[in-house]
């Protein structure tokens, strides 16, 4: 039975591989259209968006609608993981690690928070942005629950706060898109009210705002994923 299953899996995988190879040949190569987009972005992106980082300019200005889709995917993933995993029990200690680790992370955690804020707020100037800084923000909650115990995490950074941050981030992102319709002409248009000199911190229109919103949303979402994995254990240890 298992041998038939293996043969079936091999046949399905090889069919998928053959179709992928056939269809990958149809992707257009170095055509005029791609060259036009490439030269347009490399020549005009700094003047059109005000962002020095081209990746951020594409992600949050030209293709901001795709970023909205990505953050919606993460929202759906968080909802599914909370639905599936909140009943499992995993062994996690509630009183944390030793004294040395607690003191050292007491010194290090403010700097981790500062670094994540730096990556989020300088997303239009240097490598980084909302998603990357948000992952570091989510790591802070994981440090709280592993090093100081999940009870500390529950008291200091409660699930209500995480839910508020995540849904608030998503709502603010959509609100920025609607503000683009009202003040400009189309959904998620760059609102040009932070236009100081190119290369300074308060430039590039609505790109820093979208970065901040996405950063807090992703950080809270990852914290919710981690918390939903250890939630039940914390309550059971509380009874003992």
């Amino acid at each position: 039975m298992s041998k038939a299953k293996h043969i079936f899996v091999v046949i399905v995988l090889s069919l998928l591989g053959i179709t992928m190879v056939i269809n990958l040949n149809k992707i257009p190569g170095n055509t005029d259209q791609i060259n036009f987009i490439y030269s347009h972005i490399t020549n005009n992106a700094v003047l059109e968006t005000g962002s020095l980082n081209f990746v951020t300019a594409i992600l949050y200005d030209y293709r901001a609608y795709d970023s909205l889709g990505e953050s919606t995917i993460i929202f759906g993933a968080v909802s599914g993981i909370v639905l599936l995993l909140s009943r499992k029990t995993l062994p996690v200690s509630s009183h944390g690690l030793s004294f040395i680790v607690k003191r050292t992370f007491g010194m290090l955690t403010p700097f981790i928070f500062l670094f994540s804020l730096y990556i989020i707020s300088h997303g239009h100037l240097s490598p980084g942005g909302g998603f990357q800084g948000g992952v570091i923000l989510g790591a802070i909650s994981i440090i709280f629950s592993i090093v100081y115990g999940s009870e500390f995490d529950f008291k200091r950074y409660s699930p209500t706060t995480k839910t508020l941050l995540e849904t608030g981030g998503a709502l603010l992102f959509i609100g920025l898109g609607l503000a683009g319709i009202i003040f400009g002409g189309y959904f998620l248009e760059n609102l040009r009210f932070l236009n100081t000199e190119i290369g300074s911190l308060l430039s590039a229109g609505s790109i820093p705002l979208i970065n901040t919103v996405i950063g807090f949303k992703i950080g809270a979402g990852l914290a919710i994923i981690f918390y939903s994995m250890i939630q039940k254990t914390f309550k059971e240890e509380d009874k003992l």
Partner: protein
Amino acid sequence: MGIRLIIAYIFMGGAIFFAIVTTIGLIRFPDVYTRIHASAVVLTISAVMLSFGVAIYVWEFYLSIKIMFVGLIFLITNPLATHAIARASYRRKIACPEVRSVDDYSKYLGRDRE
């Protein structure tokens, strides 16, 4: 070649030597705790010496300060991670020998619980 570059190369060479010692220790030592000892002592010294050497090699004020901060982070976090791993594997009784002559850490662990 100035005297500054020679000092920087001496630091980097020491770092390379300690890194090689780390690798030999990781391969040759028998169990968890001795391997942790080899990697911790030696990798901390190696990373800090390498950042010192690079900071002397670059020799600009703000750049050198940043590299020294990277070395400081290594100096803080590397013994910390080693301590956490060794303590966790001791409490889970991983690779503990049956007969031992001295065991001070089990007495210490009773006080440190909370």
